[in-house]
């Protein structure tokens, strides 16, 4: 939406105070306290997870058997695990996968969902078929299928793309494939309504082709529902990835992820109960931040709320 309108307004010099859509959205977003907190904490978590391990003195994989199963202390703030590995270092490294999978799976499902939604909404001939496929995917049992695919395709993927990267692709792919349907439905509904509007008719009447109408006129207008769906998608993907790791089916056993750390903590729940808290709290905190950001974005992208507020 931003491109055509802002171009027009910038050229018109009689308007002294120019406010771009982006700054308007940002202004409204800042009003949502929860969303701003969420954004700050999420940035902090992301930095801690991606930069933190380089600054922190302990290596997440370094075994130190004499110092195994230590309680939290100044040297090891979260204690050490059964192999003497520092738990804080593992929690930090573990977040990388969760956040990376969350983002990548979100991108995947947004791209697929938007594409299906736009094609179904814009081209009447494809509508029936694409929506049938969407309904079909909705009635597939998600978690059981995830587990089955993960088990069956683990070997070929790891042998082709390497231990960690192969699993990463597989996990992102299966989470994306089982989650794009909601986005597709929302986008289709919006496109159906947009298609009948005057500006699309105007574009058609000056001979704009279908592809160009979709890119220039339809896509910018479905941006806001897609953004909201994206934030929900990150939350679901993080929870699902952690669930897979928690069941012991995600990344290789020595590779820490938040879900895997929870699984490890479950086995020592009587001797080191505190180890459950850190990975779990971080999963929940990240998911909550993303949800709040999504909430704020929804308000900020809603023109009705923006003009009155």
């Amino acid at each position, binding site marked *: 939406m931003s491109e055509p309108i802002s171009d027009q307004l910038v050229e018109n010099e009689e308007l002294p105070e120019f406010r771009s859509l982006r700054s308007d959205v940002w202004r409204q977003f800042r009003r949502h306290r929860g969303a701003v907190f969420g954004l700050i904490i999420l940035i902090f978590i992301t930095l801690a997870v991606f930069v933190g391990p380089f600054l922190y003195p302990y290596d997440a994989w370094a075994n130190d058997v004499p110092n195994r199963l230590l309680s939290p202390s100044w040297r090891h703030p979260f204690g050490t695990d059964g192999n003497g590995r520092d738990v804080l270092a593992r929690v930090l490294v573990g977040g990388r996968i969760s956040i990376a999978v969350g983002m990548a799976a979100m991108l995947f499902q947004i791209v697929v969902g938007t594409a299906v939604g736009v094609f179904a909404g814009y081209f009447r001939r494809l509508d029936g078929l694409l929506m049938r496929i969407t309904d079909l995917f909705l*009635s597939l049992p998600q978690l059981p299928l995830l587990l089955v695919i993960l088990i069956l395709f683990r070997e070929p993927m790891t042998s082709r793309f390497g231990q960690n990267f192969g699993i990463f692709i597989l996990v992102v792919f299966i989470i994306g494939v089982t989650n794009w349907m909601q986005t597709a439905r929302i986008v289709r509904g919006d496109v159906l309504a947009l298609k009948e509007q005057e500006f699309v008719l105007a574009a058609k009447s000056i001979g704009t082709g279908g592809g160009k109408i979709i890119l220039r006129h339809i896509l910018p207008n479905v941006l806001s529902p897609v953004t909201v769906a994206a934030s929900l998608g990150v939350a679901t993907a993080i929870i699902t990835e952690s669930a897979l790791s928690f069941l012991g089916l995600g990344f290789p056993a020595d590779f820490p992820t938040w879900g895997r750390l929870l699984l490890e903590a479950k086995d020592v729940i009587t001797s080191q109960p505190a180890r459950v808290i850190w990975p779990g709290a971080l999963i929940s905190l990240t998911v909550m931040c993303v949800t709040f950001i999504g909430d704020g974005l929804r308000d900020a992208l809603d023109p009705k709320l923006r003009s009155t507020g």
Partner: protein
Amino acid sequence: MLRFVIRRTLVAIPTLLFISLIIFLILHLAPGDPTSQLPLTIKPEVREAIKSSLGLDRHWIIQWLKWCQLMFINEPIHLFESLTNTCFGDCENRARIISWSSKSPALDTIYQRLPQTVWVAGLGLLFGTLIAIPVGIISAYKQYSIFDNVGTFISMIGFALPVYFSGLLLIVVFSVKLKWLPSLYDTTHDTQFTSWSSIWFQIKQLAMPVSILTLFNASQVSRFTRASALDNLNQEYVRTARSKGLSETTVVTVHVMRNSMIPVVTLLALSLPGIVGGAILTESVFRINGIGRLLLDSLTDDLPMVQTITFFIAFLTVMFNLVADVVYAWLDPRIRYE
């Protein structure tokens, strides 16, 4: 109405066939050899014989059709026979889907495991709904009040706390620290409620799994109820009800609540099969001997069992979709003829 039901049922049949095909293809076209778990000393020709005895040497279309025959014809007949104690034709030797690891009919094992799952997950859904509906209605009626804000926050926590974390937290607090509740679920314990001590035991072991599921379900259903009640509170018929002098209680409980329940009922019907899938996580946290654990245990070496459970859950999904559609049409006559 009848035509609507019939039409929806007819659509469900190809959907089910197609889902069974997808599940079948995922399982059978996956690389890997089902006999790879057997000892390496077995000779190749014996290995081939094992494969052909399992029917794996035939074309996959034949295998799928055979499976469909077992699943859609033989198994329902067997279920009917065992429920009514009748026998049609050669009921002793009728082929059934056999689990590879237990060598017994897969569906018999599923029928044994299902009650535990339904009992735990069903109670969680029941309590969740019972809490969520009044909370959702009050939140909508007093929008942006303290009650509403607290409710919104708690439901956000409920959404952000995955069951595998909240379950472990409860175990840490109530089993490890306080030692009040058992952390493992004991399915062998007497479920007949013959004595007070057994009832107390059941309540204690159900307390944690049921309460985390209650929180999870309540947070979803209450958000949904709230949104739906908010839509209804601004409707004309509510103003009419008020203007003819009905009390606020009557307006809210009779008029608003009944109409807000329409989408909520659909949500409930749609989330029922989801709890069977979600049971995988609850059951692995508390080691409940239900259908979710059965699936987890069969994943690596029991193809027919995995296929049957996955299809069973898909079957429930499609059936409850159908039920949701029909209930929706029954509750809201406006959508019936579209």
